[in-house]
């Protein structure tokens, strides 16, 4: 039996209100999206929702620098990823774009530095 789910697209700040018709893990239709990415988001939300993780990591000297996953990871893995990142101590010489964890939790996403360190 087909179900209807309402959701807010989070891909961009526009925040389109989507109406998704789905059956199990099959998405039958997506309405309300202003672009194709909205469609992709709706499909992902109904099958395997993912999020970009942004957090910080501690350096050897005790400072924190900002990091992110360079692509979205499954939502259910966010806290596991946090645990791994929180246990890290990275070099004080890291710079923006440096990979601090490669392929975190086998998701294919790397954790990279986002802080701008002059």
């Amino acid at each position, binding site marked *: 039996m087909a179900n209807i789910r309402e959701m807010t697209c989070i891909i*961009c700040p526009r*925040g389109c209100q989507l109406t998704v018709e789905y059956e199990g893990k099959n998405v039958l239709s997506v309405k309300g999206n202003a672009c194709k990415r909205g469609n992709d988001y709706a499909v992902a939300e109904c099958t395997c929702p993912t*999020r970009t993780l942004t*957090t910080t990591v501690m350096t050897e000297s005790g400072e924190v620098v900002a990091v992110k996953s360079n692509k979205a990871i499954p939502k259910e893995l966010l806290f596991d990823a*946090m645990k791994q990142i929180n246990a890290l101590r990275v070099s004080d010489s890291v710079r923006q774009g440096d990979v601090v964890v490669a392929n975190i939790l086998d998701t294919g996403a790397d954790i990279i530095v*986002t802080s*701008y360190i002059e």
Partner: protein
Amino acid sequence: MLKVSLVIVGGGPAGMSAAVAAYKAGVKDILILEREAHLGGILRQCIHNGFGLHKFGEELTGPEYAARYAEQVKELGIPYKVGTMVTKITPDKEITAINSTDGIMHIKADAIILAMGCRERPKGALNIAGSRPSGIYTAGTAQKYVNIKGYMPGKEVVILGSGDIGLIMARRMTLEGAKVKAVCELMPYSGGLARNIEQCLNDFGIPLLLSHTVVQIHGKDRVTGVTIAKVDEQRRPIKETEQYIACDTLLLSCGLLPENELTKGAGIDIDRITGGAVTDQNRQTSVPGVFACGNVLHVHDLVDYVSDEAEIAGCAAADYIAGIESERVDISVRPVNGVRYTVPQRITSAQDTVVYFRVSDVFRDKKIVVRCAENVISSKKKIKLAPGEMETVKLDAKVLAGIGTGEISIGLED
């Protein structure tokens, strides 16, 4: 006294974008004055993503977005001083600034761009009853502790106000192990972006309590709890709905206020609604040669638009310094019918102009109508409008030239 063609007050996204634009438009003698120890402004602590889609076509975090501009400032060799606080600006464009290496400086500028940003509405202004323990922070202060200093300002959190920073901090503190128990919003709608409610609250099962407020703070040394209540249509708390929530932290995300003390000191006219300067389409204020852009002018929800606006101000400052004038018109822009304010508030030259505005309430299925006297200049349909989301209308150069002198209104109609 030091003499500089263009002084830019603030090295955040607005200041850096304005500097780069002015430089590219021919002004080489620029000085950016930034009070923090680094360029980047508030973006340095906004480590979440969602910046740059409009400007760079990709999703960046705050520090990454800031770096794009900081790199340009450095590559172009635009001079800047960090750790430098401007304490005074006079109407004849003399600036007093202080830092630890130069001491107190007096600088005479041909043109000034104000890009000081905004600050958060503090607790005192909210007049919440109860004690005065530690554990009450604005969301931005908490963000600085967590993201810049690496400290946890709280473990069990209630957030008052559903501004974007509050929503972002709800997720951030949850990820770092805190328990966010509720977000209370006085209004019947959220002040934040829909996507942030989705990905910062709904993702983590954090309740958003609309039409709710904090009526009392408890705790002697540190916060031990808050009493919240539902509010009626006049936003008065309803006694019978009071409930106690145990927590050690209250975060406030109750609005941003443009930081215009310097602007007022320079004798510049302020818009009562935006809290920023009254400007023309070039973002020139009532004092010729002084421009304003970014959150010091009006609070934006997207940094990309701050950059756009700063580029306008930067280019216009370059024209001003070069003595270039364009075809003059004199048109005032008036917000009517559900539109709270517009930026710019007046138009002085016939050029294609984007007017930014915010609405006063949540509206559905309305038309944004621009009128001059009774004539409709433009009309566009909108399914949903909300105070938290900035809107725009474009005005055509030819239409403006045709009006010449007069008033146009921007309002919502059925």
